[in-house]
């Protein structure tokens, strides 16, 4: 943590990287839309999503399968197939408009200034190269250093992610490592070039709880050291509560709630979030029945008009036939619902 006085700067200025102001925006996404098209149907997987990520903070994107959270992150990284996905809106990273960036421009950013880790560490590592070769590849691609220095850097990274006997592990293959260790290797690789932004797509979903706790703790510690901004995509509200600062909740391609983690768990302001929280089996009480949200998510190719949660919402009224905007309920707490504030619905 810097003790120097902070000077407020324009968030889009190029000096973001050197700046230590924690309120500086690293990534700014505005009105992002992703449309997949084929001969028979059109699916708007992401519909007008806006958010920003700040240096040293973690933003959680929560939602169930099919809510568009992974597509959002892939669109930001420009990893979606160009022939089938139409992307519009704007993605500002360090003053650059990523959606206009060339392919080689993106290649120089990915793995260097922005990195990504995925859910399944075995499928994201190449089984026929050693762990060391794969970390080296990232470092040598982006840094002008000798192979020997890169090897030293790679071993240092493995040490940083607390892999025991890093020198020995460096020359082993992915199949020699356990699931938790592979995910640590992925984190080491992602952080090898000190990126400003790390996008983690369900990084602990495939891991056991005790290993998940270790990996999340590691990510928090590393963030404190490096000040990396993290976007954590997850379906697990417990993970959000324990390791994130800000949160957006997605439903059927839209952001339905956006606020700080403290606000979300103190009092959610969108009925969908209320239902999600209620359907979590909790450790401190035993209910006879869990709160279940009735029905299923709408078909993305054939969306209902008006609020997309309307059919499953116990609070819906006639006005819900109109699509609500994302509206501010209290300072910094946004919800896409006509019936807010929800605490007024009950005595």
């Amino acid at each position, binding site marked *: 943590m810097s003790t120097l006085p902070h000077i407020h700067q324009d968030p889009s200025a190029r000096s973001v990287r050197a700046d230590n102001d924690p309120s500086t925006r690293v990534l700014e996404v505005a009105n992002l839309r992703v449309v997949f098209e084929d001969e028979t149907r059109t699916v708007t997987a992401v519909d007008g999503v806006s958010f920003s990520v700040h240096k040293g903070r973690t933003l959680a994107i929560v939602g169930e399968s099919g809510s568009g959270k992974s597509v959002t992150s892939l669109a930001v990284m420009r990893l979606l197939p160009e022939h089938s996905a139409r992307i519009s809106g704007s993605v500002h990273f360090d003053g650059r408009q990523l959606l206009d960036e060339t392919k080689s421009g993106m290649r120089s950013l990915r793995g260097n200034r922005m990195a990504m880790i995925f859910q399944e560490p075995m499928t994201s590592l190449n089984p026929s190269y050693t762990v060391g070769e794969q970390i080296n590849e990232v470092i040598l691609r982006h840094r002008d250093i000798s192979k020997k220095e890169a090897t030293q850097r790679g071993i240092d990274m493995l040490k940083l992610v607390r892999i025991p006997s890093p020198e020995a592990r460096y020359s082993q293959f992915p199949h020699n490592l356990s699931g938790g260790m592979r995910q640590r290797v992925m984190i080491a690789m992602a952080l090898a070039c000190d990126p400003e932004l790390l996008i983690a797509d369900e990084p602990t979903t495939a891991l056991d709880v005790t290993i998940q706790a270790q990996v999340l703790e590691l990510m928090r510690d590393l963030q404190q050291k490096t000040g990396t901004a993290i976007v954590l995509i997850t379906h697990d509200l417990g993970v959000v509560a324990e390791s994130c600062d800000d949160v957006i909740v997605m439903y059927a391609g839209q952001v339905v709630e956006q606020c700080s983690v403290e606000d979300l768990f103190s009092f959610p302001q969108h009925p969908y979030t209320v239902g999600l929280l209620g359907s979590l089996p909790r450790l*401190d009480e035993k209910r006879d029945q869990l709160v279940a949200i009735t029905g299923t998510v709408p078909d993305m190719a054939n969306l209902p008009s008006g609020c997309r949660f309307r059919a499953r919402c116990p609070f819906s009224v006639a006005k819900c036939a109109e699509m609500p905007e994302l509206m501010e309920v209290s300072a910094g707490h946004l919800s896409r619902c006509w019936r807010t504030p929800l605490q007024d619905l009950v005595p």
Partner: protein
Amino acid sequence: MTPIVSAATTPIIEARGLGKSFVVKRSVFGKAQASVGAVDDISLSLMPGETLAIVGESGCGKSTLGRLLMRLIKPTAGQVLIDGLDVTNISHSAMRHQRRHVQLIFQDPYASLNPRMTIGQTIAEPLMLHDIVPANQRAKRVAELLEMVGLRPEQASRYPHEFSGGQRQRVVIARALASEPKAIICDEAVSALDVSIQAQVLNLLKSLQTQLGLAFVFISHDLGVVKHIADRVAVMYLGRVVEIGTSADIFAAPRHPYTQALLSAIPVAAPPSQQRPKAARLTGDLPSPLSPPEGCRLHTRCPYARPECKLVSMDLDIEANGHANACAFWRELPAQAAEIAREPRNPKLEQLFAAFEAMAATETAAKALQTVTKEG
């Protein structure tokens, strides 16, 4: 042959000193050179109408135990009794007959359904195999079963790909119920589902249990789900049961360091300002089951390990109330002060939850009404 005991006290499934090791390496002549002990000396019983949860991390042997309890695989040590009958060494045809009493549900509902059969045919298959319902009444029984799991009878002619994950799991449950079992073994049955759908399926399992008096063996890694559904819990680590007791005892006063660590590792969905301090974490990864550590198998990762731990046995120390655990030094461990987090909730938020409950209830009632009017 069959021990004659009154029905109320006969466990539906009983395991006595059950063990299973798989050969992982053979010599050129087929002689076993290395084997992994997936399940080691486990004794437990499932009483009628109760839910026994088996929890543990991946690789602890919980799924192998589930398959042993149904005798889908043959144990290498010990015995399995289903409904009082020792099935350890009985013939295939006798086993097939006995298996009617115990059914199994897997994690991935799509993989457990035949994509070329309509769900009506799928559900009718056990009815035919065990000759439970005469052929001319099968369609009616299938319709009943579909309604029981919250699907519409007219959906019987559809194929699995036309259903969502939660609905497919309901179909699998309907098929399991078709043979009128006394127990169902659920192997991670809700793990692949989204939370809101998971809650629907858990509620369904619970209501089926009260309706039909089913017993469940619930294999899961998710302690929140286990807490919600289980009456008793067995915690496994590297093929051994390290702690077993009632759900209330395990969650309120976990004895074994492994159970304590497992409980404290669960992320709690509470505001950051109300998060509790964490209990001691386990260090490192699961050791290879090929060569489990000597003595207490947890000693390589245990925050309270001491040199003697390499020499102790892992026998269960049973307390007066039946709560048993395998830590030799559990009485000397630091007290786990009110480990379970309170998740204080706003009373207004609880009322909002109640609105969702009411909506689900009216929907169920409306469905029931629909069926009644249709039949009338």
